[in-house]
């Protein structure tokens, strides 16, 4: 399956979804004008990825800012990870944040409660 990479812009994050390593990264700021449209290829990629029945997947987030519509889009992405997990894939979410950034930390905790996925928190050095 083809690797998906979306380069960062002023208001969108850097995204890498790699089906060879099963390592995914979403890093940076996210406040696109149309969040649904921006995350559409990511969601579609996840649907196709599910058909490969991966053994495990590791999703790393390092976000500095998420607009409210991006928060919904990232939730939709995480629900795709939940789909994988339900189908037997071992899923780990690495949630990185700056030491003094309670907002992003709380967003991670909200997602963890909502998805019941295995979250590991890391403070950026």
């Amino acid at each position, binding site marked *: 399956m083809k690797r998906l990479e979306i380069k960062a812009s002023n208001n969108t994050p850097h995204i890498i979804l790699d089906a060879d390593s099963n390592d995914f990264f979403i890093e940076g700021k996210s*406040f*696109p*004008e149309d969040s649904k449209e921006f995350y559409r290829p990511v969601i579609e990629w996840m649907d196709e990825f599910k058909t490969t029945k991966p053994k495990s997947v590791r999703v790393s987030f390092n976000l500095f*800012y998420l607009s*409210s*519509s991006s*928060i919904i889009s990232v939730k939709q992405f995480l629900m795709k990870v939940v789909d994988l997990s339900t189908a037997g894939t071992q899923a780990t979410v690495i949630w990185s944040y700056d030491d003094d950034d309670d907002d992003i930390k709380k967003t991670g905790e909200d997602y963890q409660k*909502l998805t019941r996925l295995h979250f590991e928190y890391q403070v950026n050095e």
Partner: protein
Amino acid sequence: MDLNKSGSIEETIFTSKVNGIRTAFNVVDKKIIVSHIGELDQDKVNTISTLVETQMEYLGVSKSGIKKIFNIVIETLQNICIHGEKDNSGYQMTYFIIGKNGNEFSIFSGNIVNNGVAERLNKRLNAIRSLSDSDLKRQYIDVLSNGELSSKGGAGLGFLTIALKSGNNIDFDFEMLNKEYSLFSLQSKVLG
């Protein structure tokens, strides 16, 4: 409706609103630090939000304060971009102003909405304003759990986010411009 026409009723109401805010901050100890009048698009949202960040850093606002203000600024500006009505010639009349009073920042915004939308917004914002902090958070989680993005890209979390970040310090009003449209003004306050 021609909003850009000098001297029209719509333009007069809009201008007097903006002037009122400017006058209120044109006194000792108070200051307007960011002001944008006119059309908005995503490029302008990027420029204004970067300007806000730079100004806040320059003013020595704490990192968490900057983050709160940045959150409100983005939600406010993107709301206007998505929902602000345009006039017959495609002109989108909006204002966005940040005023500083000591370490308190007031974020003012205004855009044109259809009168039917004004009625719904009024109800929604009154409901949000009456919520306690814990109820606000509960409603936020509820929308996060069940929310989908609308065709316009709205999440239903925008006003809740503004209320949460400002400690529910929000104010708003609607001034009817004509049979069809009103000027929707929103204000939130944050400590920097």
